């Protein structure tokens, strides 16, 4: 019993150290070394909340170029769902009703006045992990 317990923990650590988790739709590998397409619903909120900083840091991390696509929030959510856009940003609050359609990142807490989140495609856990790591760095720094 005890041996099995230790073995499972070791297994978890081993798995954690390779390239898992992976994206079902390969978002992370698509972005790496290419273009990070960000749909922005409100350029003003995008800057004010510090989301531009997050996005630029993430792109640098992945060796990608940022491409901003302004648009209307509903169109952008649709685009993220279909993978045409990698991130949707622009002052989305944590309480946004879009949480059922896109995966929310951890809150961006650079601007003390408002906490916002970025949206990614549901199920793309590797990409979300990189995004959350970037946000943690930016929040801390």
């Amino acid at each position, binding site marked *: 019993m005890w041996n099995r317990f230790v073995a499972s923990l070791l297994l978890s650590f081993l*798995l954690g150290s390779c390239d898992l988790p992976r994206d079902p739709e390969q978002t992370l590998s698509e972005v790496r070394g290419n273009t990070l397409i960000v749909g922005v619903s409100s350029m003003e909120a995008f800057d004010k909340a510090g989301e531009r900083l997050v996005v630029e840091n993430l792109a640098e991390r992945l060796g990608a170029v940022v491409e901003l696509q302004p648009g209307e929030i509903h169109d952008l959510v649709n685009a993220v769902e279909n993978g045409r856009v990698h991130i949707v940003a622009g002052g989305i609050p944590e309480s946004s009703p879009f949480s059922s359609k896109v995966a929310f990142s951890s809150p961006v807490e650079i601007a003390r006045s408002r906490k916002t989140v970025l949206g990614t495609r549901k199920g793309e*856990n590797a990409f979300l992990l990189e995004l959350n790591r970037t946000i943690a760095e930016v929040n801390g720094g």
Partner: protein
Amino acid sequence: MAEQVDPLPEDLRSIRRRAVRLEWWTLFWLGTIVVAMWAVLGQSQAMKTAWLEDMMSLIPPALFIAKSQIEKWPPNRHFPYGYIRFGTLAFMASALALLAMGLFLLYEAAATLLRQEHPTIPAINLFGREIWLGWLMIAVLVYSVIPPVSLGRMKQEPGRRLADKVLSTDADINKADWQTGLAGIAGIIGIAFGFWWADAVAAGIISLSVVKDGVQNIRAATAELIDGAPRKLDGTEIAEDAEIVCSYLAQKFPESRVRIRETGNLMRVSIDHPHPCDPKIDLDALRREMKQPWRLQEITHSFSNAGKNAPHREPS
């Protein structure tokens, strides 16, 4: 309150006390598991299913503890046969709840698969690093298996000695918990490898086993509640002691109708004699043939024009 009446013989009461203690421990450890799972739930359908199943498995221990007290209440005018069948009624109720929940979770798993929902499992900040929640879920699932399996093993023997269905099915469900843990872990590893459907499939497998448990328990409880013949602890076959008693009495009274049923874990026999005869039975001899002689609670004789070949209709 009047003096308590205990259906169990003296030597089995310490076993029951131990069983009650084990069930209190079960409640405690399952409680910690439920809290740990709740902390890492996330969007995984398999985690949610395993969590709900563990919450439901808090019911049988609570039931056993309650029934151990209640069945000792003395009979009164309103309940002249006492409260020994309370346990079976509560057992049926919990089996129905289990079945309902299992079916609901099965539906949820199927719906998730059909909607092609990709579960998102984010990261959590631990000791300054962003760690994928999936690894934590796996760790919690591994932990969630250990207490139930150990406790299940410890409760099996008391369940058998006390001929207690609530206790022994609780022990069986606990012992089989490793299957739930394994399915949940497989689901999350599947997600880690990018197979989004692994989670819903794992949830489906877990809920199928919940449904199976629910159905089995309903069958066992039904048999007793409608005065069926006493069953074996782990299935629907007729209990050995019941067969022994029936064949012994049928031999002694070849023309009479011998019927046996169970109330709680005790057996009651009624013998219908077609014509007057000497109802004397050597109880000691009969009890010597039985594996668990204390279970034979009463033998009732009736004298009518009935007997073995009577039509099965209530007398008007």
